[in-house]
């Protein structure tokens, strides 16, 4: 399942929830790398 991104505009009140695009997904996977190696202490 593709992770979702939620975008909230506080000026207009608009809310968008959608699947991450290719670029967003690539960055998200990089950001999540530490959880593969970091212990829970």
């Amino acid at each position, binding site marked *: 399942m593709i992770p979702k991104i939620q975008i*909230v505009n*506080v000026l207009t009140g608009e809310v968008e929830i959608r699947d991450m695009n290719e670029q967003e997904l690539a960055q998200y996977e990089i950001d999540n790398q530490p959880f593969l190696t970091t212990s829970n202490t």
Partner: protein
Amino acid sequence: MGATTIPAASSAAGVSDNWVLISTTTASASTLSITGISGYKKLKVIYNTASVPQIASLRFNNDSGTKYSSAGWQVNNSNQVSRYLSAFLTSSAIEAGPSNTENFNLEINSTDTTNAKTYTVLSGGTLYFATATGTYQATAAISSIQFGWATTSSAVVYLYGVAA
């Protein structure tokens, strides 16, 4: 020796920070981007919700450049420093959290200026408490904040600001 005179409290306008609630958002995704922020010199984000997933990233203006430097430490539930948080010119405002972050508190200063911004983060969960202070080396005013979580979050996120 003369009597000490205690100065009267100033009543000048603008002395108080006067934090205002800008938005309340219930997250329902792995990444939350709060956009459209304008006209504030300080920003604060808090959430306190059980079982919020681990923090994977935190960015301003969706900027993944290596412009964030932060330092701090993490204390575990045995009251021992279990990890030093040290990041110099990295792509996230804080290091990824190793445990669920049930209580999160971020404050950003000088958000409206064209100079560097400073920030502090306090976060905690059942397994740890962490604190860090950092600098974001960018010239654009902050108009958006991005949270990345390890999985889908349902945190209720409050954004506060001090008008510029």
